[in-house]
């Protein structure tokens, strides 16, 4: 008889692995990638490819330099690359993409210990650096579907920029166009239908729980309904515009940068929703999803402290302190 394996229990493991989870996220992002190609042309595929390749390369090189084991096989760098690409306008120069990827992978992720250790979402970190560094290139929007006519970059405002409380909505795309993504914006964020398809896939595969996307989008919807004095149309435009769905489904649900308990997830998601709404309504910026997520990312350790579950059968801390005082 060969030597037997002796290891600690349990002796069976579930089939779920980290690469499986990441592969599921990649699959869930495919509908949005296809939508982006239809809407903004093959350049969006090129941008996505550049981002994915540079993220993998930076991950590989930085781990090598830091003399750590190679982790590209966990596929997380591909997810980061796709998400960052989806948050860029189709006109973005490719070298800027590479800089964004460098920041996302090397500074945000690997400097803090790699997968699971990053304190903010790498894709959002990379995007915000690009937004601050190349603000005009990052907000150079083009009209959708124009690429087919051979026209080069017909510039157009995003619906979010022209959307305001009580403002005229006649110049905006119809709600159906908004839902299908026929509007100006970042390549991966516009097609709500494709993003929701990905959302359903992630739920079926049990990769994420619905709690963060629902609370995030729900909070924005409620605030916008109140701000719009009960106008459902205004509320729906707000929900469908900007990067809200992309952010709520794919970025706020990032495991490492969202709380681990359900209670914490609710607080986190509502916080994201409130900050997004406040930025959109009162701040100078047209869009607030990325900033909202990154601010709440930073608050996650504090949310986890206050939502720590009580171990089974453990007494409430306050009670035991009282007992101590009494005795």
């Amino acid at each position, binding site marked *: 008889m060969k030597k037997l394996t002796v290891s600690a*229990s349990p*002796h*069976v*493991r579930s089939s*779920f692995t980290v690469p499986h989870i990441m592969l599921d996220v990649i699959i869930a992002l495919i509908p949005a990638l296809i939508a982006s190609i239809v809407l903004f042309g093959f350049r969006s595929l090129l941008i996505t490819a550049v981002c994915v390749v540079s993220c993998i390369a930076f991950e590989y090189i930085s781990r090598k330099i830091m003399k750590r084991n190679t982790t590209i096989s966990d596929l997380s760098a591909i997810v980061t690359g796709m998400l960052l690409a989806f948050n860029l306008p189709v006109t973005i120069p490719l070298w800027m993409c590479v800089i964004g990827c460098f920041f996302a992978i090397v500074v945000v992720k690997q400097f803090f210990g790699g997968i699971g250790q990053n304190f903010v979402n790498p894709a959002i970190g990379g995007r915000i650096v690009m937004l601050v560094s190349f603000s005009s290139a990052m907000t150079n929007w083009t009209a959708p579907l124009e690429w087919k006519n051979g026209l080069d970059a017909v510039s157009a405002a995003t619906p979010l920029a022209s959307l305001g409380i009580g403002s005229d909505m006649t110049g905006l795309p119809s709600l159906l166009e908004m839902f299908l993504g026929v509007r100006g914006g970042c390549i991966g964020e516009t097609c709500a239908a494709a993003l929701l398809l990905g959302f359903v896939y992630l739920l079926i595969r049990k990769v994420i729980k619905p709690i963060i996307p629902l609370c995030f989008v729900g909070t924005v919807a409620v605030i916008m309904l109140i701000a719009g004095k009960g106008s459902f149309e205004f509320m729906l435009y707000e929900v469908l515009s900007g990067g809200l769905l992309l952010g709520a489904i794919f970025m706020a649900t990032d495991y490492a940068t969202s709380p681990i308990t359900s209670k914490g997830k609710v607080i986190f998601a509502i916080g994201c929703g409130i900050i997004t709404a406040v930025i959109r309504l009162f701040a100078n910026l047209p869009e607030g999803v990325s900033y909202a997520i990154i601010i709440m990312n930073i608050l996650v350790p504090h949310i986890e402290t206050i939502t*720590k*579950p009580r171990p*089974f*059968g453990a007494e409430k801390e306050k009670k035991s302190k009282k007992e101590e005082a009494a005795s």
Partner: protein
Amino acid sequence: MSKITDGILKAVKQVKGGVLVDHHKDTKDMATVRITPPERVILPMQQHIGAPCSPLVKVGDHVDVGQKIADSDQYVSAPIHASVSGKVTAVSEVKVANGRLLPAITIENDGEMTLSEEIVPPKVENKADLIKAIRNSGLVGLGGAGFPSHVKFNIPDDKNIDTLIINAAECEPFITVDYRECIENTRNIVDGVYLLKKVLGFKNIIIAVEDNKPDAIKILKEIADSHKDNAVKVMTLKSKYPQGAEKMMVQSATGKIVPAGKLPADVGCVVANVGSVAFIARHVRTGRPIISRTLTVSGSAIANPMNVRVPVGIEASKVIDFCGGFKKEPVKIIAGGPMMGTALIDTDVPILKSNNALLAFADEIRTNKKERDCIRCGRCVAACPMNLIPTDIEALSLNKDAEALSKAGIMVCMECGSCAYSCPAGKPLVQYMRLGKDVIRQAGAKK
């Protein structure tokens, strides 16, 4: 009859956390087979939680079946009886399943199976008689942990215990010992239930079964309905690991939560394995001590999986041979279930009273995955029935931070393995739990 109470029991039947594991109850329809007695048995001096026993016999002595051959003067301990008749050939150290060396008595079987004159049915009229009888029988919890049963049933008079929960959940995959007990030894279970009720004065008796065993549920329901006093109820639990854990049982049956560091007795409950209850009834009727037990022998490497009745002390290799040997090269052999059992180094170790399964797996078993960095997905947190955060405890254990570990509640961990089972990063979380508990013990020892 008890429709209302059934409704209440169902409302609480599922507890938080846990994991859905493939059941693999392949041997559930196989009637228990008696093994041919082996040429020798090896009886380690500690087959239970508590103080080890000292041998009462020496090399060369002749012993009969059921004769007490080792005992301890400590309260938390259980005597050991000869499981075959014959000559004591060695009193020496042997290796047991977990790799430890324990003193043990080896008996060469003379093939006669002469019954000892010590075997006489005990007189049981009151609690003291019953506790004494249980201790003399050498019974330890047959569910796997091996806690001496007389200690469990000897409830201090100042504790108000009214509920007996009989555990037939059998939530570990593969094992079908308790299930066969329900089907084959129904009479003994009924007798045991009413004996314990009469002598120890339980008001409620709840028999808990997972809902993947409808036949057992049917039989147990008949037991419950056979007496008109309505004191015995059957509770069906969702098949979910670890429903059969003691504290989970108490919560499912009564809604009460056993405080950390306390026992079910502190909330008025006693939890006993269904096999133990049936054994008590048989012991009171016949006086036979615990010298044999049923094992589920299964797994992908076993030629003929089956439930087999074996004498305590038989070597694992003999049991496997009886089940047709290996049909594939085994890579892992486990004493107990796949979630909490012990992996064997080799098969010449003896079967103990508390062993309920012997599983052998060929290489397709998903024993381990590649270990990666934690991605904080929270699956371990969702799976932990004890409400812990296993991934945080990993870091605290590696940092040897005793204070933070006890604050994180690590001592309530029962090492059920749900966290490690569900971890996509393949972390050996149960090992970190054990490491953390050791850190706390060592810190306590220093003080």
